């Protein structure tokens, strides 16, 4: 046997070989088609922005910054056919924020409770049914929520609003200039609450179920009760995911149209007295004005659509960042 001496390598290893294959034509075509279709998403988003901007451009030019900050929305055609108009979105933007915040404030605790129940308390058989029910909730059309909200929820909610006003009316937001409680931001917020619970619950549930088992065991081994363990381990771990899910819910609430339109009295005034029958949100305002809009007004509504588009884009972008970072990385 030839003697083999083993020596430590004295030179640096040779450079790695570059591995290439010649892609077949059919694969090239395949990749090209698939890539092209994928970029259609980009194309669509760009087109939306472009076309809405084109239509809304005049509005932005004429109204300037007042489009965002102004409170009035009217158009007036004089006898010469000259149209003067003022379009200001602030009331609607404020309204959007108000009802979305109400929705998030009520939906987040309910969703977190439900997600905790599903992950840590529900027996196996029940769990599957509950998950199905929540998925079903997500599939209901928004106009169904509008109908139900108006005919079923509103009568009850008006009564609650009266109670809140009676006991807490000394706080500004619970006070009302007149005792009219129907079609208020409060009720719109409640309808939105119900609509965003599925998404917040799903995201929270996903992150709670990923809580590392060894930390859970460490808490129990120290003599923790189930709630003690949840507080010490699950909630800190899942906080990011819950926040991300809430922001996704917020984004959904921003853009909701027909459900809000059905249960809200749209008035161009920033109204923080949520129990009172005055409010608005950009999306339902667009629907409301569309039917009788003059061409100039159509442009303004397009501009409003663009503003709404960017608003929801930003919120959803931030939300997805938060969700991806916490849920996927499993902190």
């Amino acid at each position: 046997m030839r003697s083999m001496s083993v020596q430590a390598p004295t030179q640096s290893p040779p450079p790695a070989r570059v591995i290439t294959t010649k892609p077949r034509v059919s694969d090239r075509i395949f990749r090209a088609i698939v890539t092209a279709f994928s970029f259609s998403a980009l194309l669509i988003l760009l087109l939306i922005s472009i076309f809405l901007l084109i239509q809304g451009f005049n509005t932005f030019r004429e109204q300037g910054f007042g489009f965002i900050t102004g409170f009035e929305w009217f158009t007036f055609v004089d006898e010469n056919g000259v149209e003067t108009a003022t379009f200001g979105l602030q009331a609607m933007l404020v309204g959007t924020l108000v009802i979305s915040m109400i929705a998030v404030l009520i939906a987040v605790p309910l969703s977190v409770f439900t997600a905790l129940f599903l992950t840590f308390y529900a027996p196996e058989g029940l769990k599957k049914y509950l998950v199905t029910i929540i998925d079903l909730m997500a599939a209901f059309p928004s106009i169904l929520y509008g109908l139900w909200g108006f005919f079923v929820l509103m009568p009850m909610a008006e009564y609650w609003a009266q109670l809140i006003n009676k006991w807490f009316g000394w706080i500004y937001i619970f006070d009302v200039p007149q005792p009219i409680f129907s079609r208020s931001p409060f009720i719109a917020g409640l309808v939105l609450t119900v609509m965003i619970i599925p998404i917040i619950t799903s995201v929270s549930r996903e992150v709670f179920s990923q809580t590392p088992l060894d930390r859970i065991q460490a808490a129990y081994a120290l003599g923790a009760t189930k709630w003690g363990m949840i507080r010490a381990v699950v909630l800190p771990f899942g906080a990011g995911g819950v926040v991300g899910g809430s922001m996704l819910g917020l984004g959904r609430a921003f853009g909701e149209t027909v459900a809000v339109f059905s249960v809200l009295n749209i008035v161009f005034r920033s109204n923080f007295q949520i129990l009172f029958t005055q409010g608005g949100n950009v999306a339902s305002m667009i629907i409301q004005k569309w039917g009788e809009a003059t061409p100039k007004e159509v442009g303004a509504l397009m501009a409003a659509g663009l503003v709404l588009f960017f608003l929801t884009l930003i919120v959803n972008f931030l939300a997805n960042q938060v969700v991806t970072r916490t849920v996927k990385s499993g902190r």
Partner: protein
Amino acid sequence: MSENITKNENGTIMSDQDKTTTPSSLSDVAGARAAGASRVGTRALGTGLEARGVHAWFDKHHALADVSLDFSAGTVTALIGPSGCGKSTFIRTLNRMHEFIPKTSMAGQVLLDGKDIYESGIDVTKIRLQIGMVFQKPNPFPSMTIGENVLSGLKLAQLKVPNQSELMEECLTRAGLWNEVKDRLGAHAGGLSGGQQQRLCIARALAVNPKVLLMDEPCSALDPGSTLRIEETISELSKTMTIVIVTHNMQQAARVSDYTAFFLSDGGPGQMIEVGPTNEIFSRPKDTRTENYVTGRFG
């Protein structure tokens, strides 16, 4: 095979069959430990922990059969044996962690100071305060600081302690970590090395003043340096509490324990084959299977 089996007052089972086997280096280590250890007068620890006829099932699968062991107060007992023979399952029946896995069941009794911890009506969270556990993978709570981690057991149990910082220092010192972290108690626990994290977990377990400390392969994820430090800690701790340690590392068992129990499964449920003083298990085991394992013929 016939043999006379007697039980001395410590509860360890002795047999009059005396097999001489080639002493491995393990037995030297164990012998040295037995010789050098001075059993300092232990504080009133009660009568220790005792398992009687413990069985464990995962759903229908019988994982552990009829294990009876007596852990005397103030001793260190090592549980050794090949993978999958039920050592971890057994140790989890000792502090009622076995029941967290769905569809598990058990039989038998586990007595702490003479009282069965599985009795109905008992508050299991109180049991776990008296029987603490350290896990294989260090698991400090990352959302808490080092100081908060140490005190977390108290917070979870809602126990009030007159002087928290004193307790913190004491536990960290006993765990052998005080000098390394005393200036950064407010730092997050995630920044510590593996060995440090494990010592933090030990300190955390000590803070609630347990009578028994269960350790499930505490060093298997650590480097040799940390392992040695933790073994020193175990020696110190055993002066004031009872320790049960599961280990894959026979040298470790020889180094730290007073008694060793050998577990084995022949395809069926895991059973405890033999228990005795450590130096005897390693030098003169009574069962062939024990001998084969400690001499490295399998496992």
